């Protein structure tokens, strides 16, 4: 990882001057006088303070030294291994991709860092949890998050729930004081953790018996890496984390992963393959809905081969996008009209099933579903054929056995539908430009279109820049315009849980994955990530610009600043309630970003926005500096009354979907 921390953001685009290293903490003469008058300071102190410059936005030498420290390999020799070290060693053998945390649960996070798990510390547990989730959505890898006992852990809850809705293989770690203090409220921070994550995890366990720490670590990874992933929550009382083991015989079930879990996965039965191929052969307009399972199981090459062999239409769903390119001739992601023409739907790896009327397909269309676990087949959506199979194995079989066939009429219809959707977006953009010109504020359609256009026309960026979107009004417009062309290029932060706010932090996690070339992000190291969020949303993630800066994760954050929660039209008929939806106007998120070590720009015209994106990209690429672009907007853009057309219902599945 390139840790180019010595370069500082050079440009304050607001003032148009170079600021270089900022010295934001200067005591004014007035302030010093006040201190002296109060009798708190001495003349000597006051004089020193006036002459002293406190350099801000510097990385401590200790930070750099810490990252350069060698990895250790704990052993039973000598003092032996702690429970935390036993667990950390297991995580290392399982190739745990990263840990995103805030200090707390010290024994465990320290042990994970010591054994060489890429470990990152930040400012708020909730956002660090979101970063872990974003990292996984962009890579498919198992990641961990951790927080301090009760408070840090409960701060993570929204983002654990978001990860659960997205079926992210997230290992939630948190210490839980001591067994000795249980039920006594001894000192502080007690929380009953396991009941708190009930309903938002696949497996959870408070470790009680120190000798079973390896056994439960193994159980955690068995759940994380088998079947449909979801968060797993382990909490470590001090008696477990700090227990010492001098021999492997002190530990129950201390054996390797080859023995405590299996890579064996279900293969489709020959009769099922015969049945699905028969259905596909008779269909004129078959549609494959490729869900998150195809991404998780890295089945995109097989999907492409199967689709191209028989001209199957494809649309992807889930929290990760791009594993079937939006610009492929067979992609219906941006061709919603054609979805209504499908005469056969084949779900593959759709982990979160919609009900039939939630998806834009013909009423009562014939449906096949391929899923790795039998017990979910038939849930929500009645099936004509259910197949238990690993997604990639199924797609490999399909690619091999499906007879080649050209479906020219279907392909032509998809192309026409794409053109029609593009035309509607072009019209929307024109309306946005008109609204921007009329109001002198930036319309969200303009932001969204110019954002994607920047990527599409960038000589380096079209495949390299990973993206995401969030916010209400901003997200509803952004989804229509953002595109993904390679696996993991786009994540959908509000996916299924609809959390407003973790989006920017998630994108920092994506940036970490890109900078380190993890999984499908390999080859794009160096490219900044970009996201669109709202003023409501950024308040949840803003402080993590510090984290992005210190680790060198360039993230370009477009903030749609309309001075309100996007749902403010809900108070249209209740005037006395509307104040609850409003913020102070023109809050300078860009200036806040600057004080956290990022660049900040404020814009209110399309031209200014495009130029700001260009500068932000260069700073991100060349200096690994993040940028927050504060786009001044109007809350009235949400509704159609004054500035048509207002927000639209998101079409799913497809580019604008953020559920299922």
């Amino acid at each position, binding site marked *: 990882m390139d840790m180019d921390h010595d370069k500082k953001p050079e440009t304050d685009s607001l003032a148009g001057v170079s600021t270089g290293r900022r010295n934001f903490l200067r005591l004014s003469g007035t302030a010093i006088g006040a201190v002296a008058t109060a009798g708190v300071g001495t003349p000597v102190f006051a004089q020193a303070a006036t002459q002293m410059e406190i350099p801000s936005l510097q990385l401590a030498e200790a930070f750099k030294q810490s990252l350069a420290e060698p990895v250790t390999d704990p052993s039973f020799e000598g003092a032996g291994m702690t429970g935390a070290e036993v667990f950390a060693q297991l995580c290392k053998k399982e190739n745990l991709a990263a840990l995103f945390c805030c200090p707390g649960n010290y024994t465990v996070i320290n042990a994970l860092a010591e054994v060489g798990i890429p470990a990152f510390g930040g400012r708020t547990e909730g956002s660090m949890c979101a970063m872990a989730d974003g990292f996984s959505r962009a890579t498919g890898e198992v990641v961990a998050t951790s927080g301090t006992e009760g408070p840090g852990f409960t701060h993570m809850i929204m983002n654990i729930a978001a990860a659960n809705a997205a079926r992210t293989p997230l290992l939630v770690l948190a210490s839980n004081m001591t067994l000795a203090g249980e039920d006594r409220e001894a000192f502080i921070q007690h929380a009953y953790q396991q009941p708190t994550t009930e309903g938002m995890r696949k497996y959870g366990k408070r470790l009680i018996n120190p000798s079973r720490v390896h056994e439960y670590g193994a159980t955690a990874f068995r759940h994380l890496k088998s079947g449909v992933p979801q968060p797993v929550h382990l909490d470590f009382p001090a008696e477990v984390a700090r227990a010492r083991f001098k021999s492997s015989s002190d530990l129950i079930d201390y054996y390797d992963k080859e023995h405590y879990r299996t890579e064996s996965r279900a293969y489709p039965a020959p009769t099922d393959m015969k049945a699905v191929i028969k259905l596909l052969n008779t269909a*004129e*307009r078959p549609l494959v809905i490729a869900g998150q399972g195809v991404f998780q199981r890295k089945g995109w090459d097989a999907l492409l081969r199967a689709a191209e062999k028989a001209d199957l239409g494809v649309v992807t769903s889930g929290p990760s996008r791009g594993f079937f390119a939006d610009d492929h001739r067979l992609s219906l992601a941006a061709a*919603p*009209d054609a979805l*209504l*023409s499908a005469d056969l739907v084949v779900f593959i790896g759709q982990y979160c099933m*919609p*009900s*039939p*009327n*939630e998806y*834009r*397909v*013909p*009423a*009562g*269309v014939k*449906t096949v579903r391929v899923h790795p676990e039998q017990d979910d087949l038939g849930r*929500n*959506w*009645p099936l004509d054929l259910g197949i238990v199979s690993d997604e990639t194995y199924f797609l490999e079989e399909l690619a091999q056995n499906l007879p080649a066939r050209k479906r020219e009429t279907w392909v032509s*219809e998809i192309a026409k539908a794409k053109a*029609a959707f593009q035309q*509607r977006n072009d*019209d*929307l953009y024109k309306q946005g430009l008109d609204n921007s010109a009329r109001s002198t504020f930036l319309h969200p359609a303009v932001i969204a279109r110019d954002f994607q256009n920047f990527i599409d026309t960038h000589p380096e960026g079209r495949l390299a820049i990973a993206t995401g979107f969030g916010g*209400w009004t901003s997200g*509803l417009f952004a989804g229509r315009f953002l595109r993904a062309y390679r696996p993991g290029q786009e994540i959908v932060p509000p996916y299924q849980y*609809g959390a407003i706010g973790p989006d920017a932090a998630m994108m920092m996690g994506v940036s970490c994955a890109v900078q380190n070339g993890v999984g499908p992000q390999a080859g794009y190291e160096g490219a900044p990530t970009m996201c669109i969020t709202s003023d409501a949303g950024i308040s949840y993630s803003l402080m993590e610009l510090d984290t992005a800066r210190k680790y060198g994760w360039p993230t370009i954050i477009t903030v749609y600043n309309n001075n309100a929660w996007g*749902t403010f*039209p*809900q108070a249209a008929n209740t005037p006395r309630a509307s104040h609850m939806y409003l913020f102070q106007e023109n809050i300078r998120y860009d200036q806040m970003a600057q004080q956290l070590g990022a660049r900040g720009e404020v814009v209110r015209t399309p031209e200014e926005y495009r130029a700001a994106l260009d500068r932000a990209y260069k700073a991100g690429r060349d200096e690994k500096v993040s940028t927050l672009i504060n786009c001044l907007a109007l809350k009235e853009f*949400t*509704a*159609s009354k004054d500035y*048509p*057309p*207002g*927000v*639209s*219902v*998101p*079409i799913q599945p497809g580019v604008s979907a953020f559920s299922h």
Partner: protein
Amino acid sequence: MFGENLLDGYVMRGVFQAQPDKLRREELLAWTMRWFAGHAMRLSVHRVDAGHSITVEPLLPPLPATDPVYRDLRSWLSVQKSEAIPVHRRLGADIDVKLSNRKGTVSLVLTSALALDALTDRAVQLVNGVYKDFLYQPGRLTWVAGAFQIDPDSMVFF
């Protein structure tokens, strides 16, 4: 009884819940249905000289004829007969489609000499299109949330 199971295929595929309804004057068949967002509709069949007519009412929550959304719905419906729609979804010359509005109650009537099950499928797919295409047109979210009395962040149509 003739046509009694006409909607069963859709019910079995989770499209909507339906139950036979008491027949009104000159009706051949009738059902009440709960479909999108729990919206209750009535689908009734009449025999006419040309074959059959199918009426779906109320197609949407109350919508005055003067409302721009109703005007947009009329134009959307006329497009369904045009070449902009793929032939397998297009409403052909063999089907007559009418939209009417009586004090805000919107009715959709399809008349054709087609076999009744085929005509029923066209009616069901047309209503499906109203909900999955027309209501998804740019800018429609605020109206949908108000008309169906649903929060914008629980915009579910099952």
